[in-house]
């Protein structure tokens, strides 16, 4: 049933009147208008809906709204600071680490979470961290290169 859920979204406090069992992805996209978060499978199997909750990469299509009460949620829209891209976004851009772009927000957020925990991951660690993020276009080799470049440039901002 609808009740007020408050959390920090991209650095700003939001309070929303909604059923806490609703999945975060739909609230972000529909109720809050942040369409950068994509829904690709609806069951937490593709990673397109990845957002950060207190710095952890989670699948927002299978995270209930109530689970983020009082926490900090970061979406792709929250990475740019005063017009400057996040180092991970910069690395994806300069490496052409995207094609259709549908998986890209989730890929970038999973990478940000990885580099915050493991600033210099080896390739195997990157592959493990991004295993749940699917890309159908086959941008993988570029994404791996972008993640490594971002790690080298302090992608853990």
């Amino acid at each position: 049933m609808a009740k007020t859920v408050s959390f920090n979204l991209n650095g700003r406090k939001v309070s929303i009147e909604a059923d806490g069992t609703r999945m975060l992805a739909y609230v972000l996209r529909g109720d809050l208008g942040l369409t950068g978060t994509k829904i690709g499978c609806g069951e937490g199997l593709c990673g397109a809906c990845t957002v950060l909750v207190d710095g952890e990469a989670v699948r927002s299509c299978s995270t209930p709204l109530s689970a983020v009460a009082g926490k900090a949620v970061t979406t792709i829209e929250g990475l740019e600071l005063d017009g400057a891209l996040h180092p991970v976004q910069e690395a994806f851009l300069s490496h052409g680490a995207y094609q259709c772009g549908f998986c890209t927000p989730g890929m970038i957020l999973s990478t940000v979470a990885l580099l915050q925990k493991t600033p210099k991951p080896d390739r195997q660690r990157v592959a493990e961290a991004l295993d749940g993020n699917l890309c159908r276009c086959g941008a993988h080799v570029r994404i791996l290169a972008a993640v490594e470049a971002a790690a080298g440039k302090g992608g853990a901002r």
Partner: protein
Amino acid sequence: MNRRDFLKATGAFGLFVTFPLSASFQEPEKPAERPGYPKDFNAYLRIGPDGRVGCFVGKIEMGQGAMTALAMLAAEELDVPLERVDMLMGDTDLCPWDQGTWGSLSVWQFGPVLRGAAAEARAVLLQLAAERLGAPVERLQVQAGIVSVTGAPTRRVGYGELVQGQRIEKHLADVKVKPVSQFTQVGKDAPRKDGRAKVTGTAKFAADILPAGTLQACLLRPPAHGAKLLSVDTSDAEKLPGVRVLRDGDLVAVLHARPDGAREALGRVKATYQPSPSTVDDKSIFEHLLKVAPPARELAAKGSLPVGEALAVRRLDATYLNGYVAHAPMEPHTAVAQWDKGRMTVWASTQAPFLLKGQLVQALGLKPKEVRVITPYLGGGFGGKGGCPPALEAARLAKLAGVPVQVTWSRQEEFFLDTFRPAAVVKLRAGLDKDGRVAFWEHHVYAAGDQEAQSVYDLPHQLIQSSGGWMGGNPPGLHPFAIGAWRAPAANTNVHASESHMDALAALAKMDPMEFRLKHLKNPRMIGVLQVAAKAFGWTPKAGPSGRGFGVACADHRDTLVAAMAEVAVDRKTGQVKVKRVVVAQDMGVVVNPDGARQQVEGCVTMGLGYALSEEVRFKNGKVLDENFDTYQIPRFAQVPKIQTILIDNPDLPAQGGGEPAIVVMGALIANAIHDAVGIRLLQLPMTPERVKEALKA
């Protein structure tokens, strides 16, 4: 930049449009059955007072990079910097007609049209400049959209200034496009125009477009293909607040302001069905295809098979199998339709907005001018979004509901309603003569289609035949569900068989597979790509199986020639195949954006690993058993090999397509490398660990 910003930037709201709108540009009252590309360059190009070039094309951007490559072609011919070209794509009101974005045609087929238009526009601009500057055209030069008099650089005028306030009716015939030798932008790596929007999440896809008051619709689907609806009870769904139920003939839809609300309501709809009459499954399908496929059509014949067979001292027959493969784009099919003041506007994830417009006109009984299709960014297509059924569903519902309606397929719907790459069978019969050359070659493909069935080798006695295919003309019941084009349709299936078979013949002849291929090739371009790939890969001749796990395969896909080499490791215990590295050499003529072309090759290799090793749609009695990415396994990071791409410099051939060629070799490439590693020849794709283990046991 989103569409609105683009329109602001280029002033398409009447601020600057100084070229007259040509008739072909406006909504045609009675469109031809199959319109062609308009001849008037104004249909493609508009120049703003600031000199920015608006480039309007009916193609769409789905990740393949057409937005950037086409902008480069326009920029090159006009002599303006790439960053000053703004692309507007896939809008049937604003863009000139296009057949659809597929088949690697954007650069190869449409590129020359756009170049021609831009070259003519430049020539007209130069004439205007000549009048303005009082100097003959021959004395003028253009740099970055500024025309100046050679030797008198202060006598100059920009395109924007030239065009402002004028109506240009002028057209010039027989304007030549630039020769390759004068290219300053084409052929150099360019940053993609869609980059910033995609890394910031501001790129809009169809599901992101939500006109005020949009309702989300979920449609009732049968549990199996061929299952007939007997009864439906929507009363439980209707009890949920905010839910509307709409029925229109066979269509049963629940609508809600939120997508999760609509999905929840659909879960409360009770329906009963007559079971599907379909009896085939993913194991019995191949026998079924052979039984039901239409009669053979001859695609090519040379010499005489009986003569060739008489020359054969050793023979090799094999039957190659491919299962159904899903497109599985990360973005599910989506459309939002708005019915407003007698006009239907549909934002749809489609590769063919003009085709869809025609379908909407027909389905809704509207006039062409009453329908507009707008294609935002597509989250992958791969041939699966040639049509867009949810657009027709959304449009029907929007008319009924009186509010905008969005239909977004769930992943389960995506796997159920996809137009799969058809399961197929290829029967190959061949033999070697006493000199170890191919004496005869018979290739018969069932259910896949014709593309690249013909051999790239110089074979004196051969017969190539095809029975049925993805393009249609199949007897009813050949496939238990919809099939269609899948990235390089039919070519993947045909080349898997033919290049596997050439490899098997090389092993039979105890020859190095690369040398065996060269021995049968006359085409210098094909020989060239093989040699370039071999050098980069470090190929040394050895007959297979050498134990090294090296594979080779090559193909000619619509005149783009590709050779690939791979190194694999096979785990005999688990049956797992690890592809360690892939080298691709590609001759695609002039390369417009080399970095974009390399991205396409990498995409082909990576996507190709899926159909080679893990992807296969399982089904039974009309039910699709793979419903999401937990069981339908597409390639992931841990499986991706090192990929090296070499693009051959070939300025003598116009630019060919690059979105498909490298994927067609992937099945055979990996099969050949597995054979080289452990001596087993797998004839069925995908080569799953179970199939590898089984073959190792035999």
